[in-house]
């Protein structure tokens, strides 16, 4: 292997790693706020990629019907949980958030699909279609379990993942899709060429991280999420509802997942079940960060991406094995350092 190939592999690795980093951040975020290990994160990526690819090909993405369905279900779940103390404002807000919003998004999609709305338009529409599914799923599957153990929440997460994957097969079919790149620009530095798409991926990741940093550092809602993560009871006592924090955390995870999907759609062919493996690599990074540290998780994600791209070169048949083996020493060190890491609640 010469230096040029190494650099190409490195570039590939960093690009994939950037996407894993996004997913790792969102896993850490959701876990620290809700204690849910968000296995279905990968499905948001797959839905995002396939929705974007469909819009890119001028078709109506099937996922809009899933959005409508989840909206209705979340509405019913919300009404049920409010049965003892429904205020008019709360009901109206619920109806607007779960029925009106999907209806508008579906309408806009039907209207715009097939017209040239540009890359940005397609991307925004994709996020609008996919991201709201996450808070709806929170309301349907996780909010009723808010006080349950991490294990129960994990089982619910696995169930959600399987359900979403199954629905994905129905909505998008068994074929894979690949979208066209955002830009055909190619940057040459010496003998190296950098694809426009790679720059897009890295820049979007960096922007998202900056946005998250500002959100947590400078907004009351960001701090409310942080507060929920560090002291759930304290947060409730100041009037931050667990459900609200959960919804915001899942909403961010939905946006990040959909974005991840849009970014990978032009890089690789995505199938209805591709999300799981992509999400799993984000998960490896999140674990390395101990599910709590954002910078560690992001760094680990880039490492995972680089390891993956080099092992693809050397032993492509074993690349997944190699990537997931990387996690073993980390887990070993971790368990040796903190022998009892039981759920403290």
């Amino acid at each position, binding site marked *: 292997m010469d230096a040029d190939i190494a650099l190409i592999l490195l570039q590939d690795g960093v690009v994939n790693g950037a996407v894993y980093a996004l997913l790792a951040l969102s896993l850490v975020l959701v876990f620290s706020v809700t204690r849910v290990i968000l296995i279905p994160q990968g499905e948001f990526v797959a839905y995002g990629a396939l929705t974007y690819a469909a819009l890119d090909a001028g078709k109506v993405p099937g996922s809009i019907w899933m959005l409508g369905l989840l909206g209705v279900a979340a509405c019913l779940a919300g009404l049920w949980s409010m049965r003892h*103390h429904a205020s008019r404002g709360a009901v109206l807000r619920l109806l607007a958030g779960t029925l009106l919003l999907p209806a508008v998004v579906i309408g806009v999609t039907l209207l715009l699909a097939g017209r040239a709305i540009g890359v940005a338009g397609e991307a925004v529409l994709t996020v609008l279609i996919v991201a709201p599914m996450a808070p709806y799923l929170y309301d349907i599957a996780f909010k009723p379990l808010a006080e349950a153990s991490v294990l129960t929440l994990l089982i619910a997460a696995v169930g959600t993942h399987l359900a979403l994957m199954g629905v994905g097969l129905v909505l998008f079919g068994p074929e894979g899709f690949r979208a066209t790149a955002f830009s055909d620009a190619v940057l040459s530095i010496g003998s190296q060429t950098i694809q426009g798409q790679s720059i897009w991926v890295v820049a979007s990741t960096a922007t998202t991280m900056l946005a998250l940093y500002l959100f947590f550092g400078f907004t009351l809602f960001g701090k409310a999420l*942080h*507060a929920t993560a*560090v002291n759930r009871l304290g947060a*409730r*006592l*100041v*009037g*931050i*509802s667990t459900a609200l924090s959960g919804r915001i955390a899942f909403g961010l995870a939905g946006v990040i997942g959909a974005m991840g999907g849009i970014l990978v759609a032009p890089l690789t062919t995505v199938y209805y079940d591709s999300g799981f493996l992509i999400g799993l690599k984000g998960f490896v990074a999140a674990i390395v960060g101990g599910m709590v540290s954002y910078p560690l998780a992001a760094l680990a994600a880039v490492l995972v991406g680089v390891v993956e791209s080099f092992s693809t070169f050397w032993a492509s048949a074993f690349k997944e094995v190699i990537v997931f083996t990387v996690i073993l020493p980390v887990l070993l060190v971790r368990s040796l350092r903190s022998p009892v890491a039981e759920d403290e609640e």
Partner: protein
Amino acid sequence: MILAATGLHVGYGGAAVLHDVSIQVGRGQIITVIGPNGAGKTTLLNAIMGVHEGRGSLQLAGKDIGRLPVEARVRAGMSLVPEKRELFGSLPVEDNLRLGGFRFRHEPALARRRQLDEVYALFPRLRERRKQLAGTLSGGERQMLAMGRALMSRPDLLMLDEPSLGLAPLIVREIFTIIADLRARSVAILLVEQNARAALQIANYGYVLETGRVTLQGASAELAADPRVVETYLGIAKAVPAPV
């Protein structure tokens, strides 16, 4: 009447802890609940706040709040300073306070700023420490922060679970002075205390809770003179400087 709790039954799993407890708090009053360890005082406050489920009727300012979740009770105008304080340790003091005013997040920044300044006026120490992480505060400062955070939600009823726990007498006096001061601002207070002497000194009315039952109640001067209270709760208690 700001708070009327009638016939509360509360338990953990199968074990009953509170049996038919009724407590009332009038507007602008300080009501204290005293009793030995394990009597169920914390359980009582948690049940009133909605942190813990129980049976019985709960009314805040005449409205039934028994089925509301904690957050809605905060919005209805009550606030609890829990025994363990439950601060946001990795956030600075000022963020803890701002989050205390979360229910007023839609209000203009100016009004929220004014509330913050009011709390700082009450606890000047917190203003000095506003950039410090809550997890690094001393015990007395933590208690002040917990009270300040609770006051940020402008409660009509403030419930305090052992505010003097683990604090030096001087700080206890400071905290009790502030509690008496709050009554003057027409915040009703439900005060749970081990320090029966100090509590009965500032309270209007008191309840004695023993093994989950109210065994004695009355105006605090009467309670303080009751031989049973003197023997069990005041006799051995160390004298604490009276609030000014």
